[in-house]
């Protein structure tokens, strides 16, 4: 019964981590579900049982659908720019012609992602300012004044203006992740491809992408889940406004909890966010058949 003894020790080793995850991840999820069935506010001890009413209300709330739409926009645009764009940037930086300058570009592209989100938000708020902002200033300078716009102040453009800032900030970060895994690809593959006369684009599609498939998958999961958890960028730049046009699930939750004193409703939103991200990541893991590396 040696294996059993070993197993017991093995379990003991896992136990601390397991307990930690249990108490800091799983219990809160269950507790949150419990909380979502009561009407309560943070400063009032009284709790009124409402059952699943808040979920019913949530699915009827038009803001919920605005938020879902905005989160999805976030996800799709981030996939194109951060994962797609990041891949291209990484591939270009790995190219022999540019590799000499790679450290320089690596730093330049990476810098935005180390700046705190509050700073980035305020900075872009100024850049987007219709009177003194650089964005409109640039448009005037190149003679396209009719494109000048109140970017964050118009409910049609505000969400795109906010999403763009995310792309600006994190594309470089993604490119860096891809770059690292590209550097692990054996050079022989590329030499062989060169001898066979494959074009650069073909090499990229047939060698680079399959070789870093795992990293692409990780990148996709990170961006998509990040897109559904996004809060700070939106909160700092627009606070969900104008009106509710840039509301995402995160800001909707915040508003319910700390503005409208509806902790129960906020908990219900939290549960829904959890379910959405859970389904998305399960789906991606299944599609990507992950688990071999990283």
């Amino acid at each position, binding site marked *: 019964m040696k294996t059993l003894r070993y197993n017991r*020790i093995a379990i*003991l*080793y896992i*136990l*601390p981590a397991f307990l930690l995850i249990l108490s800091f991840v799983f219990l809160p999820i269950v507790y949150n579900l419990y909380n979502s069935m009561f*009407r309560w*506010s*943070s*400063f*009032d*001890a*009284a709790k009124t049982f409402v059952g699943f009413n808040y979920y019913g209300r949530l699915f009827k709330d038009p803001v919920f659908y605005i938020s879902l739409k905005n989160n999805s926009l976030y996800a799709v645009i981030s996939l194109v720019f951060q994962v797609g764009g990041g891949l291209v940037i990484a591939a270009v930086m790995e190219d022999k012609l540019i590799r000499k300058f790679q450290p320089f570009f690596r730093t330049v592209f990476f810098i935005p992602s180390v700046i705190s989100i509050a700073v980035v938000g305020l900075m872009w708020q100024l850049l*987007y*300012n*219709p*009177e003194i902002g650089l964005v409109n200033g640039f448009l005037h300078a190149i003679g396209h004044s009719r494109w000048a716009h*109140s*970017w*964050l*102040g*118009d*409910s049609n453009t505000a969400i795109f203006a906010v999403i763009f800032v995310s792309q600006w900030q994190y594309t470089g970060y993604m490119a860096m992740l891809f770059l690292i895994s590209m550097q692990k690809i054996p050079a022989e593959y590329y030499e062989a491809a060169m001898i066979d006369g494959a074009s650069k684009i073909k090499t990229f599609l047939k060698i680079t992408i399959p070789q870093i498939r795992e990293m692409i998958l990780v990148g996709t999961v990170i961006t998509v889940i990040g897109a559904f958890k996004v809060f700070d960028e939106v909160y700092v730049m627009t*606070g*969900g*406004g*104008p*009106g*509710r*046009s840039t509301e995402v699930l995160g800001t909707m939750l*915040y*508003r319910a909890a*700390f*503005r*409208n*004193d*509806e902790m129960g409703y906020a908990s219900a939103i939290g549960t829904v966010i959890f379910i959405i991200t859970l389904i998305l990541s399960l789906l991606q893991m299944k599609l990507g058949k992950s688990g071999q590396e990283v």
Partner: protein
Amino acid sequence: MSKKTKLLFVAMLLFALVLAGCSSSSSTTEEGSGKIVLKFLHKWPEPENHPYFDQVVKEFEKQHPNIVIKTDAIADGPIKDKLRVILGGNDVPDIFFSWSGEFARKFVRAGAALDLTPYLNKDTAWRDSFIPSSLQPFQTDGKNYGIPLDLDAKYFVYNKSIFKKYNLQEPKTWDEFLQELDTLKQNGVTPIIFGNQDPWAAIHYLTGFNQKLVPQDVRMKDYNPKTGEFTDPGYVQALQMFVDLNKKGYFMKNANSTSHDMAKQLFFAGKGAMFYLELVEFPDVEKAMKGNWGFFPMPAITGGKGDQSMITGAPDGFLVSSKTKHPKEAIEFLKFLTSKENGSKLTTQLGWPSPVKGATTAQNAIKQVAEGVDGLNKADGMAIWLDTDVNAKVADSYLSNAQLLLDGTKKPEQVMKEIQKVAKQVQSESE
């Protein structure tokens, strides 16, 4: 058990101890030294305002060596959210800032605020030292829960040289006002500077319009979360008036993406003729414009069914936590803070009008502030900021829709329907 497993258990036990240590926060340290600790939370962390409170606290501690006051300050915007979280926690400040009206009332309903009526009744001299209209907004069911610190009111501030250039007078009625706005616009001057990035700026207009267009008793009934319906046609009219100001081009462009502070700079630079500003901002205006400015209250609306002589504004003040262990000392501090001496210091140092009778005078305040307070005394009363006077959810609906009214995505009728729906929901929940 083998040695290894024993070791592991010890390690885990230590780990658990560390975790447990995290949870119990460090309790008040000064209590050991026999001193009473009072936690005081206000909303003025700005370097120009904070020293006043520091000074008052220091002075108080000197006079009461057995009391230590721990001051904390959170800025205007964030305190709206944070106050709710703080009051839900275990570390509740003994004395905390609150707006008057519904904002304070929800803490009262939750039992988080201490009833101060007995203390005020015991010391009638203290009670009578306040301008009556400043205590009233903190009342719920005839009981006093808050002590006012300052008085704030909203006035249209105008640029004197622009008014002179186009030969304009301070308007008495809304029609006169509109005419003047039109004159300004015809001459290529931006009539009203307005920054609505944070939509409370729009709410201040709506507070005034509602007060002037909706009968007083109906409005009071609607602002009460238990009976609010918002079906009076005056509410839609109020929104329409706000939209019209924008549609006719009287507001500056891009109001939704301009912050109030930036708008202020534009006004100071002479980029517009008028600006709807608060009394507490008058000292800033004076600093920047040096006498080249005047002010008038929102003009009366002919035919409006509401009260025409009230002024939009409210006292800011403090509540005492119902969980405080030292109510007597907390009251002692509030008395000190609102003494005539400290009230007049509030005016001299910060330029703010004090609700204490005789504390803000023509001698210690800039001329316009003294006149503004005078205007308040003459007015029928105050219409409290809409976003702090109605239930939080109704306020939220007003706030977010104000921006959409400006950019034209929503019509006043639509917005009002939405607000009625929210009011109904609030009603059903507050039984």
